[in-house]
Structures are given as structure tokens and as C-alpha cells.
């Protein structure tokens, strides 16, 4: 039975911080398909369009009928554990630091046998549940967990290397003055975060959300204005070595586009908060987080960007806002590459319209902030990299994959 993970102890100041190493990240082009599935939490394998044979490891030609149309399809995630081992010796530096490491060979219900990272509670001959998850290198791997998970499954140390569980970790929520900021603070509290740091800009402007945040046990407020380089640097000098999960929920929505409302000031503010804000946070908090990617079982692990669904396709009603979100999304991809050496995962969430004052004129469906916060925490626990929240965001993702022109024409309804 998986033992509960003891909470982190105070760090010995003379102990060298374990430097981040990554599991092998060399993958074929075909295998990147697994990564695409793992990034959004799907258990999908190549299934031959001709003969239905499920393929694993990924390939370009069906091993049964030699057909070359092998689309990715969700498949049964069950399986039976054929064999298991605890690896006690490894040449790879990442695993050397973490021995023993448990592996299993699973006969999947979908057909193929798969080598999988094996949760502690799985037993040879018994049923297991397979999942595709991103490992610390950012590539997909198979995980096998018991079909009936035990109470402490999330404390499985191997699983924690692949997920970004907030339990016993320290979180910085960049903006505590919005309803989403409050909901995030509550959700991280529920998820067992060790400390919750919450930023707030322009302290002279009141915010009911911030007043509620202030009352949450375990929350500490810090002045933080992402438009002010000094302010971000100052906070990074205080919290840089502590933040294990960064949640950039900066938010500045004003309606208007390029022709119907050309406003340089508003547009600049949007860019300053969404794009330059992310840049300031990345440049100041990124290095310390990247350096602490392997700092024990509770090291830095995740950078969450709360982006708009319109980061992916411009909604002219919020035209300049969408553009600033797209800029932030692009920078987040840069950040993802730059944080990768530390094993820090960048989770980009694409959120549909929130049920707040700035979406007053937008017809439903609109998302309650606590639902969004719950989905974000859940995605961290699962270790996802991209998350569409809400029907609008999900539809955008789907339609973009299908026909980007169609949604470009239709989005302004």
C-alpha cells in the first residue's frame, strides 16, 4: 500500500540542492503523437483505419495489414499486469537519483503489451488502469495504476514525478483581486497546498475578492503588479526560491477591436498585463523555479497560464484582448521550452467566457470562477499541459482542428 508522503521538512541550508535532470527525451516523430494525447489527458493510440488493429509502440505502417492510415483514437485503458520489476541500477542520471524505480509489463485490453511506470499498489496478474502522462522530459509515458486506487495513490512518488500535485507545495497566485483569483486560492487550499501566496496590484483599489482571499487560512498577500518590473523583481527576490507552482491569472478584459474601437491605451494595457506581465514573471521567477525542479519530492513543478480561449482564435468583440492573449500564448510556448530543462511543466489553460462583469453582454454559457479553478487544480493533479475549460473553449479547440477558416468567419455572433 502506498504510504502517505511525509510533508516537506525545512531545508538544510548547507545541503546542496539536487539539480534537475530529465528522463530520456529522445522520441520519434510517430511517438510525439503519444505526447499530443498525454498533453490533454487522453488515452489514445494509433488504430488502423483499415483493420482496426491497435498499434503500440507508434509506427507509420500497420503491423497487421500494412495500411498507413493510423489515426489516434481513444482506446480501452484497462489491462492486466504480466510482470513487474523494481529497477535498482540505472545508467540514466534522472533515474539514478530516484532508485528503486518500479516498472511493469502490461497486457492492455486494447491489444498490445506495454512497458509502463508502475504504481506501488499494482500486483502481478491483477487488473490495472493505464494512462498516458507527460514525464519530466515533457514526453508521453505509460503509467499503470491499480484499477481500484488506494487512498494515497496521489502520494506515489513515481506518479508525483509526472503530475504536478499541489499537495504540500507552495503556490503563487498572481492576481487575488478577481473572483477567479479567490476561487483559485480556495481550490489550492482544498488541494492541500502548503502555502498560498497571493499577489495584488494597486492596493488602494478595493476588491471584495481580495478581502475574502485575505481570510483564507494559509494565504499570505504580497503586492505584485505585473506591469511594474520593479514590483515583480522585488517579489521574486522574496518568493523566487519558494514558489513551486506559479499561477499567472492576470486578467484585463476590455471589449473592442481594431476598427470599431482603436484605443492604443487600452490595447497597450492589455499587452502590458497579459504579454509583458508574463514576460516579467517569466524572467524573474523562471530561473529560480527551473533550478528547483528536482528539489526533493516537493520541488518546483508547474507554471500555469490562465489564458483565454480567444488566445487561439481572435474574437473581434474582444479583438485587442484576443491579440494580447495570443501573444501571451506564444510566449508561454517559449517559456515551456525554456523551463523544460528544469522539468517544470507549463500548463496553458484556455478558458471560455467567465461569468463576471466584463462578460455581462456575452450570452451564456459563462463559466463560474470556482469551476474554472477546480479544473485547473485537477489538470495539475493529472499533469496536463493544455486544458480547454468550458464548452466555448472546447468547441474552439475542436473547430480549430477541423476548419480554422470556418470558426474565423463564425466567431463574432
Amino acid at each position: 500500500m502506498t504510504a502517505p508522503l511525509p510533508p516537506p521538512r525545512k531545508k538544510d541550508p548547507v545541503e546542496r540542492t539536487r539539480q534537475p535532470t530529465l528522463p530520456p527525451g529522445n522520441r520519434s516523430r510517430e511517438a510525439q503523437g503519444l505526447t499530443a494525447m498525454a498533453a490533454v489527458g487522453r488515452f489514445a493510440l494509433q488504430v488502423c483505419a483499415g483493420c482496426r488493429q491497435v498499434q503500440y509502440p507508434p509506427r507509420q505502417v500497420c503491423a497487421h495489414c500494412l495500411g498507413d492510415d493510423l489515426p489516434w483514437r481513444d482506446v480501452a485503458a484497462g489491462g492486466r499486469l504480466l510482470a513487474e520489476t523494481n529497477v535498482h541500477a540505472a545508467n540514466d542520471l534522472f533515474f539514478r537519483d530516484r532508485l528503486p524505480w518500479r516498472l511493469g509489463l502490461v497486457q492492455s485490453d486494447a491489444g498490445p503489451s506495454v512497458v509502463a511506470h508502475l504504481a506501488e499498489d499494482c500486483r502481478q496478474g491483477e487488473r490495472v488502469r493505464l494512462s498516458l502522462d507527460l514525464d519530466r522530459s515533457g514526453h508521453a509515458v505509460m503509467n499503470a495504476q491499480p484499477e481500484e486506487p488506494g487512498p494515497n495513490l496521489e502520494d506515489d512518488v513515481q506518479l508525483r514525478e509526472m503530475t504536478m500535485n499541489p499537495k504540500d507545495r507552495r503556490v503563487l497566485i498572481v492576481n487575488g483581486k478577481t473572483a477567479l483569483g479567490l476561487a483559485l486560492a480556495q481550490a489550492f487550499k482544498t488541494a492541500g497546498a502548503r502555502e498560498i501566496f497571493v499577489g495584488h496590484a494597486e492596493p488602494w483599489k478595493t476588491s471584495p475578492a481580495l478581502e475574502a482571499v485575505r481570510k483564507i487560512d494559509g494565504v499570505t498577500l504580497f503586492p505584485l503588479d505585473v506591469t511594474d518590473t520593479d514590483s515583480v523583481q522585488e517579489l521574486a527576490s522574496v518568493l523566487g526560491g519558494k514558489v513551486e507552482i506559479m499561477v499567472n491569472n492576470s486578467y484585463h478584459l476590455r471589449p473592442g477591436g481594431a476598427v470599431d474601437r482603436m484605443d492604443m491605451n487600452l490595447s497597450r494595457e492589455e499587452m502590458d498585463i497579459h504579454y509583458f506581465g508574463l514576460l516579467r514573471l517569466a524572467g524573474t521567477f523562471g530561473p529560480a523555479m527551473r533550478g528547483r525542479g528536482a528539489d526533493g519530492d516537493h520541488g518546483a513543478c508547474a507554471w500555469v497560464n490562465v489564458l483565454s480561449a480567444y488566445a487561439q482564435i481572435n474574437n473581434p468583440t474582444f479583438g485587442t484582448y484576443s491579440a494580447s492573449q495570443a501573444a501571451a500564448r506564444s510566449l508561454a510556448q517559449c517559456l515551456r521550452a525554456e523551463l523544460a530543462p528544469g522539468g517544470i511543466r507549463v500548463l496553458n489553460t484556455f478558458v471560455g467566457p467567465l461569468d463576471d462583469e466584463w462578460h455581462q453582454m456575452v450570452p451564456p454559457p459563462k463559466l463560474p470562477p470556482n469551476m474554472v479553478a477546480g479544473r485547473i487544480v485537477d489538470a495539475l493533479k493529472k499533469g496536463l499541459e493544455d486544458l480547454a475549460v468550458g464548452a466555448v473553449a472546447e468547441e474552439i479547440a475542436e473547430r480549430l482542428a477541423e476548419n480554422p477558416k470556418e470558426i474565423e468567419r463564425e466567431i463574432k455572433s
Partner: protein
Amino acid sequence: MTTGGLLNQLMGGILGSGIQVVDLTMTLQPDVPTIVMPPEFGQSWPFRMEEISRYDHRGPFCYWNNLSCGEHTGTHFDAPIHWVSGKDLPENATDTIPVEKFLAHACVVDCSAPAAADPDYLLTQEAVEDWEAANGKIPPRSWLLMRTDWSLKRDPVAYMNMAEDGAHTPGPHEDLIPWLIEERDVIGFGCEAVGTDAGQAGHANVPYPCHYHMHGNNRFGLPALTNLDALPPQGAVLITPPLKIRQGSGSPARVLALVETT
């Protein structure tokens, strides 16, 4: 004691003794609050500073910064064009105001005691008349400066003192302004809070009366001053030039006061 021309006498006073130069300016830094407007309105940029180089790879010989801010940031000068009531007046912008108007006498009314007791304290005509009784009549073309010691509040939250119904900071009563213009011909109104109007002045019969009347009569504003406690009630000379911005509605200003010490 230097003798000779007027300027020599002035410099003699400044370099020798007799004239003290007092800095009435707040330091411009990122946490200097800017005036709060409803969020759907356009917003003034806060003061921001990005280093260009600091004797490093970006420029080994020099240290310098890029700045950005709204015209009405920190200690600043309000030009008549700032307000709708002054939009069509002649010589109403920072680049067209006759420069001699940037030098003027100052009358300082000490309201620190009542403002400490009531953040919504409003300076009335009656109070100014009481002040004149003690300190003499306000000379024409003088600044009327309202000292509240509000600038001693270093915490931006206390300084802005926002509540759900808006800011609570002292300022001039709406009836005082027309009197100052018509009866005393002041050059403008200065104070220590973030704007020349009181925090609650948006709720007045004429919203923001100080802005409305002063600028409508081609007079100026000088908010966010500090060190007013170092000035005598009468006699100081203020130097208040804004940057020469084309059609500027104001600008941050380094406001200095010359005070006779003998």
C-alpha cells in the same frame, strides 16, 4: 551680502543666506498612485521605469532609463486644457501657457488639524477668510495651497483612502473655488492629495468643481504636493513649470518654493 542687480540679489539669497529652496515634489516611483477613474473609462498609466543600461553589456558607459506615465502622475501641473470647461481657452496647454505664469506667490492654508479629524474635510470660503484675518489678504495671481499633511501618508492605501463610494481625501469646498477666482484672482489651487478636488468631489453638484471652475477660468492645478509645512502662510514663491509637451494637459513637475528665512 551680494549687491547689484535683482538676479544677483536673488542668487545671493539662495547661495548665501536669506532664501531657502524647498522641494515640494514627491519622488516618482512605480507605486505612486494615480487618480482612480471608473474602469470602463480610459486610465492614466502609472509611472514605470525600465533600465536601458547600467554600465553593462547594454551600455558600458552609462546608466539610463526609459520612462512611461500619464501626464497627471505624481506631483504635477494641471493645465486648463485638461478639463472640458477649459478646452477652448487661449494659452491653455503646457506648450502655450506664458512661461511667467510658472512663477507665482503662494498662500498656504494649514488644514492639517481638521483634515486629520475628517478625511472628507472641505476647505470653505469662511475658513479662508479666517485665514486672511490672521495672515492678510490673498494677493492676486497667487497660488492657494491647502496644507493637510496628507502627503505624509506613505502607504498608498492610506493616501488614496478608497471605500466603496470612492476616495475620501480632503479638498476645496465647491463654493470656495468661484470665490477664489472672482474675488481673489488666484492663479490656481494646490494641495497634497492625488487631485485638486476632494475625494468625494465626483458627487458634488458640479462634479470635480475645482477642476471645472479653475480650468474653465484658465487657472491651474498643482496636486500631490509635499513639504507644505515648510512654507510660511504668505510670501513664498513657487516655481512650477511643466514639461513643454505639445498640447499637453499637464505634466509631472519638479515644484520648488523659494522661502525667505530672514
